[in-house]
């Protein structure tokens, strides 16, 4: 499905501040896999997402999606195959446009409808169904501007937008971190439901180790641009948060763990 081969990304190359954000990373994701990605701040998690999503290009290495080389494909081309969600709910939606307009934008993005009417009546029926699944009462507020919704609601709409076009790959970058605990749990539940239903290959960055182990089928831990742990199946099922933290300090030879990781235990 997704193959990352020897990915290397250097920021500020050739200056005293040179920083290797991705240090020859390689891994493969199979179809329908749900991977959680953990690691301290600056480990290179978001850099990896940006490289896969096309925000910037790799210095060396390759990225293949469904066998297609997307390493140097422009961002807006690969975006039709990759859905992305960010920490800030404001990033994923257009605030001055209505819910239905936002959803229509995401829904039609692959079809390149051009001068056909944007919000189609039949599509609205689908939007209403999908929104009803969120159980937030949004199905009756299709004409509300998204900017008027709460953070949790906006993120739920953004999630719907990211998955509406049935992307091959979904990248979730701490998408519940800015929400209050109740909303975070709700959005996480919706995420699991949608990913399971649509069988979308997903990568999720989180700082909550508990949820990293509970969600999905595989966990990857990164540190200083390298993958230091990649665990699935039985090994993962038997893993506890405490054990993972131990593994983390062992493997990274760095006892200091970011405060956020500790707090989330």
């Amino acid at each position: 499905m997704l193959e990352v081969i020897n990915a290397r990304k250097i920021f500020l190359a050739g200056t005293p501040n040179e920083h290797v954000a991705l240090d020859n990373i390689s891994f493969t994701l199979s179809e329908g896999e749900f991977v959680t990605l953990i690691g301290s701040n600056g480990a290179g998690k978001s850099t990896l997402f940006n490289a896969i999503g096309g925000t910037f290009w790799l210095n060396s290495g390759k990225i293949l999606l469904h066998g297609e080389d997307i390493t140097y494909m422009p961002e807006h081309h690969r975006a039709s195959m990759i859905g992305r969600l960010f920490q800030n709910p404001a990033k994923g939606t257009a605030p001055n446009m209505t819910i239905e307009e936002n959803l229509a934008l995401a829904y039609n993005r692959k079809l390149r409808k051009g001068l056909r009417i944007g919000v189609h009546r039949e599509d609205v029926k689908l939007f209403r169904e999908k929104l009803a699944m969120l159980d937030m009462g949004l199905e009756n507020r299709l004409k509300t501007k998204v900017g008027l919704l709460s953070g949790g609601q906006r993120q739920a709409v953004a999630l719907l937008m990211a998955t509406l076009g049935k992307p091959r790959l979904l990248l979730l970058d701490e998408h519940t971190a800015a929400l209050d605990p109740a909303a975070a749990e709700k959005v996480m539940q919706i995420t699991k439901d949608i990913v399971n239903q649509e069988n979308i290959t997903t990568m999720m960055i989180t700082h909550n180790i508990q949820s990293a182990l509970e969600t999905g089928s595989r966990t990857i831990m990164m540190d200083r641009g390298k993958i230091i742990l990649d665990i699935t199946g039985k090994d993962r099922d038997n893993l506890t948060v405490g054990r993972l933290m131990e593994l983390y300090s062992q493997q990274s030879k760095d006892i200091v763990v970011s405060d956020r990781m500790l707090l989330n235990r």
Partner: protein
Amino acid sequence: MTLLVGSVQLGLIYGMLALGIYISFRILNIPDLTADGSFTLGLSVSAAMTIAGHPLLGILLAIIAGAIAGAITGLLQTKLEIHPILAGIITMSSLYSINLYILGSRSNLSLIGSKSIFNQEEWLFLNKQVLGTLIPLIFCFLTLIILIWFFKTHLGLCIRATGDNEEMVRASSINVDAMKIVAVAISNACIGLSGAVLAQYQGYADISSGIGIMVVGLASAIIGEAIFGRRSLTMGLFSAILGSLIYRFIIAAALKSNIFPAYMLRVVSAFIVVFALSIPIIKKHLEFRRMRKKAGQNA
């Protein structure tokens, strides 16, 4: 009465300018200074073609010329990443030469003796005053309808989203650069059309007609918005035209009452824009004072 009718006619003609400014300033969220050049471009093309005997074709060409000018600004902004304001100024200043060329190296061109869309014989069964109102009304109305429709299409939604949340659009397979270029082109097509109709309406083209026209369009769009709000895009476009009408009434009334001489027009426009743009902050201050006063009373 003549003054009132004249204001309505001018208000409708400049209404298309206001629509163009509304697109760049409000929908795309980019201040575009190409307007000063593309307005005169529309004026010049329309005048030159009218003298050549093709008034309607002149208007069509003016629209296309405006769109091309806008597309150039758009290309400078996106592909060369030149600051939007500077990109507009570059196009605008180069258009000065092009406009002079179109006007035949003269600074103004009179249409006296040429048949414009306002004095076609077969239409003259209508009263001249009626015709002078009807033609701008038709152009303005058609432009409005087309724009309302356009911004409801998928492409239109993409453009609106680009102005609203560029980052989101970048991450959702829409070509942001293309959207900006298309939007600035459409904006300047409207502005060119406005100039084109004005040239034939007033019967001459002048190289300096476009100076400060961006502020005039902005004043109209903002007045409309201040009065009718920003509830929806359709309402916003509609209010830009109404704003243009109101702006013309204000100017006409002020000129009539001799408060200021005609050459102070642009200063007045600038004042209106500054005042209208500062309404939110004035509201905030008043609100703050009111709350403090209330809190003081309760204490």
